[in-house]
């Protein structure tokens, strides 16, 4: 039984990570588009507890950072004034979870500014941008997965259950979709779209693209499961008693696919987050100044950024915990499903 609870821990970890990103407005100290033109490419600020005199402070503090004279990206700390970090401060207005208006932030240092993960080329807070960027990337991943699985199950179940020419047509279509060179088609598609795509339109476009490309693989998996479930004895028996196709699918066949679908979901979300990042990295994603994990990485296309500002890599590292948790969840689900199968086959007293 302890094994069966494994996935719940993963789910809790996942909910926490998603919760932080969903409440980005609260955890992020600044608006993601706000520019601090005096401090471009500022390295992450250090948070101290012990000051230059060796004195311990209970309240964490940091030192003000100034541009070194005559330089563009060389900064120096002035250790004469310690600025305490404050919690639950009021700042930029935002909407919590997209609708609750608020202006309370977890931390801040008004009127000074704290940059936990440094700033980008425009002096925008990298930490806030990563949190807000996660909203776009993760939502694209989750919605894209939902769309994909919906089409995948619909098409896979139709093909597997009815078989024959329907199976042939649908599966050849799936193969075609897998084989298409999507990236190049997307570039062509972008040329036909209106000139200025608003962030919202661009976002739904990404989800649509992900859904259109992604359905083929889950459809093939679902088809396989349905194909075998259809021939199971209890399904044949139910059919013999006069059950309709709809009833059989709903009651006996599709439940068989649930573990495949859940595992697929846990695998697909990180994959689609990655897809969003790729699209944005190539300029097909949400436009500036709206952040997403993909367009936060765009500056890494430049050699000078690559060798000069290490904190610009951070958005690439942020996805690591998300990936680990999602993949952990996927394998826990898989184990759980196989355990359940064993229980059912042994406990069911079929022998």
């Amino acid at each position, binding site marked *: 039984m302890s094994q069966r609870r494994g996935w719940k821990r993963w789910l809790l970890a996942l909910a926490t990570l998603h919760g932080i990103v969903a409440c980005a407005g609260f955890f992020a100290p600044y608006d993601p588009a706000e520019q601090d033109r005096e401090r471009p490419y500022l390295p992450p600020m250090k948070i101290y507890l012990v000051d230059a005199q060796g004195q311990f402070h209970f309240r964490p503090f940091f030192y003000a950072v100034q541009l070194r004279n005559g330089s*563009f*990206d060389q900064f120096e700390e002035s250790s004469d004034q310690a600025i305490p970090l404050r919690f639950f401060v009021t700042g930029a*207005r935002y909407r919590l979870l997209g609708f609750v208006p608020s202006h309370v932030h977890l931390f801040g240092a008004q009127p000074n500014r704290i940059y936990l993960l440094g700033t980008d*080329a425009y002096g925008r807070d990298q930490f806030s941008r990563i949190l807000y960027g996660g909203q776009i990337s993760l939502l694209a991943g989750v919605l894209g997965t939902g769309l994909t699985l919906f089409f995948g199950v619909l098409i896979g179940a139709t093909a597997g259950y009815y078989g024959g020419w329907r199976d042939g047509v649908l599966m050849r279509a799936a193969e075609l979709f897998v084989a298409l060179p999507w990236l190049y088609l997307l570039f062509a598609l972008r040329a036909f779209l209106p000139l*200025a795509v608003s962030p919202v339109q661009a976002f739904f476009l990404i989800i649509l693209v992900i859904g259109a490309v992604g359905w083929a693989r889950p459809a093939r998996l679902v088809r396989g499961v349905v194909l075998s479930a259809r021939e199971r004895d209890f399904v044949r028996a139910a059919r013999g008693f006069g059950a309709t196709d709809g009833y059989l699918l709903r009651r006996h066949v599709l439940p068989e696919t649930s573990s495949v679908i859940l595992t697929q979901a846990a695998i697909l979300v990180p994959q689609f987050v990655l897809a969003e990042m790729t699209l944005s990295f190539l300029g097909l994603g949400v*436009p500036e100044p709206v952040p997403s994990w993909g367009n936060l990485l765009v500056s890494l296309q*430049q050699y000078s*950024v690559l060798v000069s500002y290490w904190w610009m890599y951070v958005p690439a590292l942020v996805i690591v915990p998300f990936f680990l948790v999602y993949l952990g969840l996927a394998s826990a689900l898989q184990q759980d499903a196989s355990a359940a199968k064993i229980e059912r086959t042994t406990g069911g007293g079929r022998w």
Partner: protein
Amino acid sequence: MVRMARMARVSTFGRLLGCGLLLAGAGIFSRPANGFPPQASSSVELLTLPGEIGKRGGRLVVSLRAEPKTLNPLTAADAPSREVILGAMQADLIHINRATQLTEPALAKSWKVSADGLQYTLTLREGLRFSDGQPLDADDVLFTLRVYLDESVHATQRDQLIVGGKPLAVRKVDAQTVVFQLAKTYGAGERLFDGLAILPRHLLEKPYAEGKLSQAWTLATPANQWAGLGPFRLKEYVAGQKLVLERNPYYWKEDTKGNRLPYVDELVFLFVPNADAQVLQFQSGETDLISRLGAENFSVLSRQQRGYTMSDAGPGLEYNFLFFNLNEPGEKTSPDLARKMKWFREVRFRQAISAAIDRDAIVRLVYQGRGAALWGPVTPGNHRWANSSIPHPARSLEKARALLKEGGFTWASGPNGEPELVDSDAKAVEFSILSSSSNADRTKMATLIQDDLKQLGMRAQVVPMEFRSLIDRITQTKEYDACVLGLVSFDADPTPDLNVWLSRGGTHLWNPSQSHPGTAWEAEIDSLMQQQLAAPSYEQRKRAFDRVQQILAENQPMIFLASPDILVGAKNSVGNFHPAVLEPYVLWNVEQLYFKNTAENARR
């Protein structure tokens, strides 16, 4: 000629003319060639260049952003072809010195201008030979002009030679003297001849007679089928990799000690399509010179200087600007765009945007401080033509708001509670700004402007776009709101930019190729530019062009932003390295470049 910065050249329209300042040919004296090449006659009139005395030998390696499309000066329109052909392989009659920005004798050792400014008498150097050893005389010049002016050849220089609506007439006086007859005076005077490569009649007459001239001289042409008058001649071309040129033994310049130039034996152009890859190659020592650097890469290279020196040559002639779609709304214009065009045509709207833009931030954030803020098209790199009385107002959001209010705009409460600018019909002011996706600098400028305008309650969107389709939108379909673009003048003189300022010009970006000037101020600019062409003295021309700059500052058809510095680098072993702010920035004196330590160079 004007070139869209770092990109394809846009075809030029007829240049008009005038008579320019005259510079007497600098002291030219002939001296016997120092025995090389043996077959050259001893009566060559060489041009003596001042400068460090260099050492012979070595191979100079530079990288090119793209493979040149052709080696034919007639059809070369892309930047790499022009750099290779005009920088190293060909020569003109009269040349603009890239350092002094003044004209100096080249293939013509001297020239005279008639009193009415319509007749130029050029005397060729004696004993000149093409790189294949064939002599050059006035017939080659006549042939060259005939070819350039032949409409069926489609030479890119043809427009430049149509002066006052009539092609340049040329007449041979004797084997060394030619007379050019202009239909109208030409303001820039003998600058007309710069970049006009003189072609070998003995090689090109046959293809011309067969009508195949524009297909001649591709990169695949065998070296013995090709001849030029520049410091280097064709040796080898390796598709996709490199173009190797060798020293032209017949070159007509020498140093003060009487050594024939150029110093280096070989000039190699490597094709490196990516700016970052060019930086890496320079860093690893594979190339000897680097130019067209962005500020970021320049600072990366400066930070770890090993065996090379980076230098900032100061602001060049590139001017970047934001402009709005000021075309007349036509039948095909969407109602949405027609509505926006009403704002754009309001001069106070444009003035407000100009007042709201933080140019210092652009210089600091886009060019890392290596550039200059601009309030007019003439950059600080062009001392002779800048109008110093153009005001440089500091950024002022209050002034911008006051101007918008005067223009009939008001503020309403937007969806998120912030003030939102609305026009007299209560429609929110929203528009998109195009920028070229291949130019990160300009996209960055647009992003900064977007944030500046947000503070006025305007919602602007930045749309990076592939350069070709961007130009297509601006000049053909005219379906756009605003655009950030840059132009690079080839010359400091205002005449080559005629095409930008004349309302009928194809590069008159905000409303190109008009049959009649659409506004009174555009009509005034037209007449001032013509006046500038015909005026006999520099002072008079300057006065006319100063007024043009003033009109531009008042009406803001282009909101000038910033000009980047010319950033270059060279190995410490390269001598006579003096970067210029005119193209070709580092290769303009390629014949004088040499290696201080040829042994080290040979090891490579």
